Every structure is written in C-alpha cells, then in structure tokens.
C-alpha cells in the first residue's frame, strides 16, 4: 500500500481516498460520492452507534463535524491540485435542524480561497434535500509542511 503522506505533492484524489478509509474517517464509514474542481461531496450512512440522543434516535453532531472536516479537506487538495498535509485551524458549525433518523447525511465542502499557508472553506450538509440543509460550516486549514 502506497503512503500518500510522504512525500507530499502526490495525486490529491488517491490521497483523499486513502485518508477517507483510515482511522476516524474509516470508523465512521464516510465515502466520497461526487467531486468538482474545488468541492467534494461525502456520504455518511445512519448508524445506531453514532446516535447522540437516544430518545429521538437523532445522529450526534460530532460525526457531522468529522464528515464536513473531511469534505472540506478534500476540496482543498483538489483545488490545490496536490496533496499537502494540513491541520484544521478552526471550524464553526450551525446546526440548522436535526438530521432525520435513518437518513444518509450528505456533506458538501468547498474551498473558496487558497493561499500558500491557509485554506478557507465552507460547506453544507443535508439528509436528502440540498435545499433543506441540516448544517452549515465555515472553517480554515493551515498547511503543516511549511512549504
């Protein structure tokens, strides 16, 4: 298995697929469903072990943050055209409404501004109808390879 992390500068899609399969992302089971020039869409299937409120069966908010962190990360690598290691600097999420129990959550992340050291991203998550989003995200990433 090739290592997309060293050296940096490898194919962003290969790196994104690798990252999506590892560790926390792999444990959540999120998967890439669509890609553009500066955006990525990921899907997270409903699972009982990710419930945040046992009475309602509503998904916890943490997995949605992880999904949006991943979708916006991939958007940065695609826009840059190469994989470079990065860390989330800050992330704000507004929970517009509770996700419907049983529904797959789709998270779309977009990189709208890229500088040498910082990437500015935004995104929305929905559970079937993009016009009726469940969450809105704004975040920044910093490159960690000091290039």
């Amino acid at each position, binding site marked *: 298995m090739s290592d997309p992390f060293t050296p940096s500068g490898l194919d962003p899609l290969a790196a994104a697929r690798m990252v999506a399969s590892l560790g926390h992302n792999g*444990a959540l089971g999120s998967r890439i469903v669509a890609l553009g020039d500066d955006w990525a869409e990921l899907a997270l299937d409903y699972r009982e072990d990710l419930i945040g409120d046992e009475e309602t069966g509503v998904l*916890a*908010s943490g997995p949605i943050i992880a999904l949006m962190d991943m979708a916006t990360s991939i958007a940065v690598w695609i826009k840059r055209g190469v994989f470079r290691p990065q*860390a989330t600097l*800050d992330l704000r*999420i507004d929970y517009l409404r509770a996700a419907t129990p049983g529904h797959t959550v789709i998270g779309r992340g977009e990189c709208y501004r890229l500088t040498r050291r910082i990437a500015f991203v935004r995104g929305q998550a929905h559970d079937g109808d993009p016009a009726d989003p469940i969450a809105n995200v704004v975040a920044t990433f910093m490159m960690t390879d000091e290039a």
Partner: protein
Amino acid sequence: MGCAPKLPPYGRFLGISVETTDAGPLFCMPFTPTVVGRPQFLHGGAIAGLLEIAAVGTVMAALAEEPGASVKPINVTVDFMRGGRERGTFAAAVISRLGNRIANVEAFAWQEDRVKPIASARMNLMVRRNG
C-alpha cells in the same frame, strides 16, 4: 453537580468515559484507532466530538435536578491549538450562562497538561425545561 451524565451511543463509539470531580464532570477519551486522523495525530472530528460531549454533559449535569430537561445544539465554534498526539485526551466544560432557554458553554480539551489545551469549543445550546 453530583451525578455523572449518561453518555449517548456516539460517546461510547469514541470510547469516552466520565468521572465526577468537585469542579464538575471530567471526560476522558483514550487513544484508539477509532479516533486517529492523519498518522500519529488525533482526528479533529473526534476532538470536536469530545468537546461537544463535554459541553452537553456538563449542562445536563447542571440540569440533573430538573427531570425531563433536555438540550439541543444550536452551534459550536472549535479552535484547534495543538495537534492531539497518541495518548489519552481529557475534556471539561465551563458554563458561562445557563438561562431559561439558552446555555452558553466553553469546553477545553488537553492531554498531558491542563494549561496547554489542544482545542477549545464555544457552544450555544437550546434548553428545554419541563414546566
């Protein structure tokens, strides 16, 4: 703040445990393959999940004497200050204001040294009280 809050399934997924201290609940997340991000580092999503569990759990502990009270997240802003390394992570939250309808909470996560947080979160919650 005597009783430890009950964790949801997602809290168990992350492997989080809670203990009660004089200063309120203390949340602990062990380093496991489930919480890894880039190699040798914690995933930001897992850190954010721990911070949210700490914020919600601390408010629920404060509402323990009100049966039927519940909270819903409105938003959260997370600052990542240091990379989380391959060791256990702790989190605790401070309630800035617990009102009739809204709770404002700040949560902090740290590893070896509490005064060197790896991340913090500011969270607004909607509070539902019975009667």
